[in-house]
């Protein structure tokens, strides 16, 4: 095998990646647990939903935009309540159950958001924010 062949290139690539990783990462570990990843995504989705719902009631967004957005947001977290108890890195059972219960309520909000003043949109907004905060509380401190 001549110098500079495939093994040499692979070794170079690996060394470069590890060097880059050590420079940019310092002592940071490589990955988050599946539970932390899902909790972080759920917190983000619900926070976005809260922003969208508030924007629609302060005339910064149309109802159809929020409706279309909520359909996609709902899809991204639907089924997570039943996945939570199986995820690696999850907290104790009581916390998981509480999170799953809260999530089920908020998914129903995403399915039927209150887009006019005839219903309790502020209650929905508070529920979305509270559930987002509950998931954020499960993330490791920065």
């Amino acid at each position, binding site marked *: 095998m001549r110098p500079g062949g495939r093994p040499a*290139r692979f070794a170079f690539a690996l060394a470069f990646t590890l060097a880059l990783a050590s420079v*940019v990462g*310092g002592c940071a570990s490589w990955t988050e647990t599946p539970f932390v990843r899902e909790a972080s*995504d759920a917190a983000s989705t619900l926070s976005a939903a809260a922003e969208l719902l508030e924007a629609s009631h302060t005339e910064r967004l149309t109802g*159809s*935009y929020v409706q*279309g957005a*909520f359909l*996609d*947001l709902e899809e991204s977290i639907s089924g997570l309540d039943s996945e939570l108890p199986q995820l690696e890195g999850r907290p104790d059972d009581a916390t998981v159950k509480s999170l799953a219960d809260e999530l089920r309520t908020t998914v129903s909000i995403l399915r039927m958001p209150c887009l006019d003043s005839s219903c309790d949109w502020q209650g929905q907004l508070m529920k979305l924010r509270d559930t987002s905060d509950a998931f954020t509380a499960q993330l490791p401190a920065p």
Partner: protein
Amino acid sequence: MKKVFAIALGVMTATGGFLDAGAITTAAAAGANFGLGLVWAMVLATVAVMLLVEMSGRLTAMSGKTYADGIRERFGFKFYLLPLTSEVVANSLLLAADLGGMSIALALLTGISWHVLLPVSAMLVFVMVWRAPFSLIENGPSLFGLLALAVVAGVLAMGGPPAELVPTLWQPPIEDGQLAEYLFIAAAILGAVISPYLLYFYSSGAGEERWSRRSLGINRATAVLGMGFGSVTALALIVLSAIVLAPAGISGGTLPEIGLTLVQPFGTIGGILFAVILFTTCLGASLEVVLSLSYNIAQGFGWEWGETKKPAKAARFNLLLIVFIGLGLGLSLLGSDPLQLALFGSAFTALVLPISLLPFLVLMNDPDYLHDRVNGAFGNLALGGILAISFVVAVVSIPLLILSGG
């Protein structure tokens, strides 16, 4: 005057056509999660794509042959099957992601589920590739794509990046457990921006427009200015995501989340602008991907090809267009999230990048194709650098995808 107009049009279309579902997804995820810490990846990818686009246009202008023709002739049909197969897999994923992106944009405008709108998006792409002239396909969505400059206006409207964000440019905020995600997004940015389909499409477009030695000026201006201006919109999306999404704890994991970047500064108009930008950029990318795939196969097998030819004159080429739109629609209908598809597509593109880029090194130094316009020392050095990066990205992209949880 005609030349100035052609250059201006080329630059505008390249600017408007820079973003697609992959670039929007990766740029927003970068800004929302790591501040300005991945700006370097976007700048690196932009310089690489500028050089590669210029080379693919120069190859066609000087030889009258497309990049796909060149690979097949110079390396043989068996070798050509390698980039062809990898392009078919990667681009089918990207096409499904772009059709999904178009549908979500329509969903934001109408309030209807994006799944229901998928066939509408596919039909629109079909009608355009079947009926519209090449100039409309090339320029139409891209000129609308110029609306993406609203992202730059959004950064200005938000008062620019705050002082505390600036240090993240050289000191990325990577928290414990986020290293794999950081590196994965860097690889995905490179895969999303240095898309080989863009090179095949650009080269085939130059063939459709019968470029010659006299087109070299237009080629250089389009590559450098168009891609340069285009990357400004992607960079602005990184900045705007860092300003708007990160403080609200939003990671940009879905397209409606990313839309908030324009809702915050511009309200209702911002929401509509985001939907229109998403729709036109994904439409433009869908058209480019479908045509690029069909060009690749038709040119590889030596079939009659050409978007401007009547379907009966290039029957197999036109059949391919229908097959790939059907394939993209099928993948989208399986229910995968377009944003996930865009990330997988970008990661897979990164994996196969060296296969598509390696032939450049040989072709761009072959005087039978380039005559007196073969690559100089700088061009070869730059190409060598891009290839080295593409090898690294190829080796790490899939392990990082798995480590970061996709």
